């Protein structure tokens, strides 16, 4: 399958990487947190930091209303070049699904822990809800490409096609797919 990665999504890794990993995740999803803790570090170490693969995270709203707030926060952080710092901060401090840890006030408090983030600017951005439609569009986009749950990762590029991996699967599953796609 082919996938048009939104141009506004920042990537982790080298621009000359041969392959993309596009993860659709929900900041409230415990399996995304498991993927972040257990699998993502190994992918970063062995494929992203070595320049072979570029990693994209697309925050969607699947689990509940607070996912929309958490998703908007990522774009507010992106305005200050802190998209992945926000991603790491939220997954490192994730609470239970729909337990209230993702309300605007809680998100602001967590974001304040991101080094170098202008909190006043971030808070004003979050309050404005200017990225609400972007998160909704990304959620629709995810559904259109066949995502039914999070995390779902697509590995490949538009020439080779993308292979989906649904769920917080072990690193070895990702390794097999990445190695196959790298040829």
């Amino acid at each position, binding site marked *: 399958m082919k996938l048009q990665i939104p141009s506004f999504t920042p990537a982790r890794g080298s621009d000359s990487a041969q392959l993309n990993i596009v993860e659709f995740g929900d900041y409230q999803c415990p399996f995304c947190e498991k993927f972040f803790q257990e699998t993502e570090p190994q992918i970063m170490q062995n494929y992203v930091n070595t320049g072979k693969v570029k990693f994209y995270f697309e925050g969607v709203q699947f689990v509940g209303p607070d996912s929309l707030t958490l998703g908007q926060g990522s774009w507010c952080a992106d305005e200050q070049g802190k998209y992945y710092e926000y991603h790491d901060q939220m997954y490192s401090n994730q609470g239970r699904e729909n337990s209230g840890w993702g309300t605007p006030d809680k998100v602001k408090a967590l974001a304040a822990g991101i080094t170098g983030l202008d909190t006043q600017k971030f808070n004003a951005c979050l309050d404005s809800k200017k990225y609400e439609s972007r998160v909704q569009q990304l959620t629709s986009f995810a559904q259109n490409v066949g995502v039914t*749950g*999070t995390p779902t990762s697509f590995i490949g590029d538009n020439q080779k096609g993308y*292979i*989906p991996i649904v*769920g917080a*699967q072990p690193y070895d*599953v990702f390794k097999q797919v990445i190695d*196959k796609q790298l040829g």
Partner: protein
Amino acid sequence: MNVIVMKSAFLIVFRNPAYVISSILISSFMFFIFILANNFSTFVTVIGLNASPKLLLDVTTNGASNILYAAGAALFSSIIAVSILSGITISMIIYQLRITRSFGGKKNLAGFGGIFGGAFSSACSACSTTLASIFGVAGGLAIFPLKGLEISLPSIGILVASMYFISKGLMESGRCKI
């Protein structure tokens, strides 16, 4: 529910070691099916890679550990209980079929409802992609306050009831009606 009836039927069925072994095998198979059904697309991807059996085993054990991780020990234990009870129930149905040449009627079918309940309460390795989502339960088991115990506990009840009716049928089949 008469416990003596169940105990007597158990002693009759499981004095034959073949039924003990079949219960263990069916229980293990059912647990695997619960994991497979909720991680189907990953199994398809891994099989498509011609991956080693070890990787398939990794996906299976990861699926089991994800239930524990996301839904807790209570749901995990209840799914194991459903698997074991499914194995026992199916073995008893097989015994009944072989001995009485009769399936035992609609009451025995209830046991299969319990087995489906086990499959639907098994969490998947991704949010919102449990079998429950197929029926429009957006958010999967996350929307349930007890994370799926609402489904698995009644399933255990249905399976125990089914085992009772099978036991009763077996005991009645061994005596003449007046």
